């Protein structure tokens, strides 16, 4: 697909549920940044997710990596002297599903079906981020989900990432801030924490 060719492919879905999907990155440590907008496809439906967590672990759950650098001069040397490490470790990114595109219509709510395993995961380009962030409805999903990472951190990271797609980053962040101020009406301390993390 021509469209997909232009987009940066970052990995492949290895675990999926209605609310999230996990992608294994093709290259170790080459994960999409925290809060970035990624997408995958389930037949006709494109699913959008926001990366909320990335882990790098051993390929086999029972085998923990061991410290190897005692006699090495630098960290890079470790990987150079044990090239197999790149194959024994893997990076995985988890993304929270925040919307989908069905029949050329963008929806900021959960899709009818989860993502497919082995679906390619792409990092959305600026134009798509812009289009997706025309509406701040996805913030509701971020606020209302319990995640291993702090909500405030995730929301702030996501808005910081999205703002990079805009020429007037400040205006975008103010608009997003206002939306948050409404959603977090009774939670001023949380709002304050997020605002402190997104102000430039």
């Amino acid at each position, binding site marked *: 697909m021509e469209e997909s060719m232009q987009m940066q492919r970052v990995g492949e879905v290895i675990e999926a549920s209605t609310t999230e999907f996990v992608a294994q990155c093709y290259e170790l440590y080459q994960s999409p940044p925290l809060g970035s907008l990624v997408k995958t496809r389930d037949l006709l439906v494109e699913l959008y997710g926001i990366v909320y967590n990335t882990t790098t672990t051993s390929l086999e759950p029972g085998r923990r990596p061991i410290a190897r650098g005692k006699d090495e001069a630098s960290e890079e040397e470790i990987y150079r002297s044990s090239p197999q490490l790149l194959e024994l470790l893997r990076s995985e990114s988890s993304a929270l599903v925040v919307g989908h595109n069905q029949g050329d219509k963008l929806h900021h709510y959960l899709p009818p079906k989860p993502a497919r395993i082995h679906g390619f995961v792409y990092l959305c380009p600026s134009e798509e981020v812009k289009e997706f962030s025309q509406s701040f409805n996805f913030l509701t999903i971020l606020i209302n989900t319990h995640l291993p990472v702090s909500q405030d951190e995730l929301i702030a990271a996501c808005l910081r990432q999205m703002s990079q797609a805009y020429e007037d980053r400040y205006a975008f962040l103010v608009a997003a801030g206002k939306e948050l101020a409404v959603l977090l009406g009774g939670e001023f*301390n949380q709002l304050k924490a997020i605002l402190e993390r997104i*102000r430039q």
Partner: protein
Amino acid sequence: MTQENSQRLGIVVSGSLNKGVEVRLDSSASVEDMAVGRYVTIEGQKQRFFGMITDVSLGVIDQKLTLTPPDVSDSFTTEVLAGTSTYGMLHVSPYLTIAGDVTSLIEGPQPVKTVPSHFSTANLASDQDIELVFGKEDKERFWIGNPLDMETKVCLNLQEFVKRSNGIFGKSGTGKTFLTRILLIGLLQKSQAVNLIFDMHNEYGWAGTREGGAPVKALKQLFPSNVAVFTLDEENSRRRGVSTDFVVRIGYDEIEPEDIVLLRQTLNLTELAVEAVHQLFRKFGKNWLQSTLALKDTEELPEGLNIHESTLNNLQRGLATIRRLPFIETHAPTNTVGSILNHLDRGINVVLEFGRYRDITSYILVANMLTRRIYAQYQERVEKAMGENTIKPRPLVITIEEAHKFLNPQVANQTIFGTIAREMRKYNVTLLVIDQRPSGIDDEVMSQIGTKITCLLDNERDIDSVLAGTSDKGELKSVLAKLASKQQALIFGHAVPMPMVIRTREYGSPESYRDFISRGEAEINKQAEKDIEELWE
């Protein structure tokens, strides 16, 4: 229905017909740009409402914000919070519906009977809205000023205005005199009424004073053919370079017991002394005043008069004050009342200057005496006109200053001014009262005043007295108390569809004079053209 050029303020979030509606400001509208007294339109689903901002307040979504305020030095946080977590609220009193139903389309703005629905948009009123409500300057309407922060002309329907007695109130130095002068020019140009002005401080006839500036032109200089200046103090008028038309002299024989009743407080007379005046008048007839002053003691009292010595002394002391007034003579050489009426009949407005005799005794005596006689004449003529089905005399507007001296609760029942204020326009005579202490005016009279124009007042009792009887006293009170100390006024009552706050029109520059005069002439020319057209029809 939305007007292109109106500025959106926010949305209606709550309210009631009695108390007005609350408008939550959008984040784009700064609370600091709002002002009480500004006009607002609210786009309801079926009707458009027209109202006035009567209060501005601040709100927060979460009380924690007030306890742990955010860092205000950070513009980002402040900007995000503005209009969301922190917001401005406007209290708007809707007064009229200006479009929407059939009646208001045909008959113009109607009084409100409901409130706009939830989340209706509120906009600042546009020029067209204001023109729709207050009308354009035309044959009957006179441009009196502009709304706050706007250039639209706000007009007053003077034909309606003169149908009732009216009042101009305000603290000293708030521009009552300038406002009165503008209004008198309006009356002179736009209404059929003639004015009789008791000009205590010589402000309306030839030239008026201005704080920290050159004198301003007054009526006679601007409209020489329509205004006659009468004076009590010829010498003073001549010194001020005023061309007077008539010198007023009052004869002893013209003073009647009723005139003394009004002066009771000023002359410090006892109740009994006032009673004695009536007795003396019955006995001595027209020359009672001279005869009373000539009495040496009670021994000389004619038969049948029972007046105590102390009462007589008290009365004589009081009457001596009157005798000392320089414009009082044994017999007046001219008939002042006749001359005033003669001028009024010809449509010429009369300004009576008091010159140096600005003491309250002279003012009350002269104003009361002349008004009583003129009113009697008017009453007679109107009754005659009604009986014979002929044309009634021209409506007369009598302007009095320091009105609380004539209309205070003690004397309001007895003076002619009280009668005129109460009987209103039955005999085609109405009052224009100018006062700085409206609380001193009798409640009954105050309630009969049709249109009230008030500049800044800050005494609680004065404010209460002016606003007595209005349905939205609380709201208007906050508007009234926040008027600027100069050139701003609140107008409400009979002649205006809703209370309005205005910045008074400019007066005193050459352009302003030209504006006043040219409008008058244009009006006359238009009328002449119309008359000619009608002649050939």
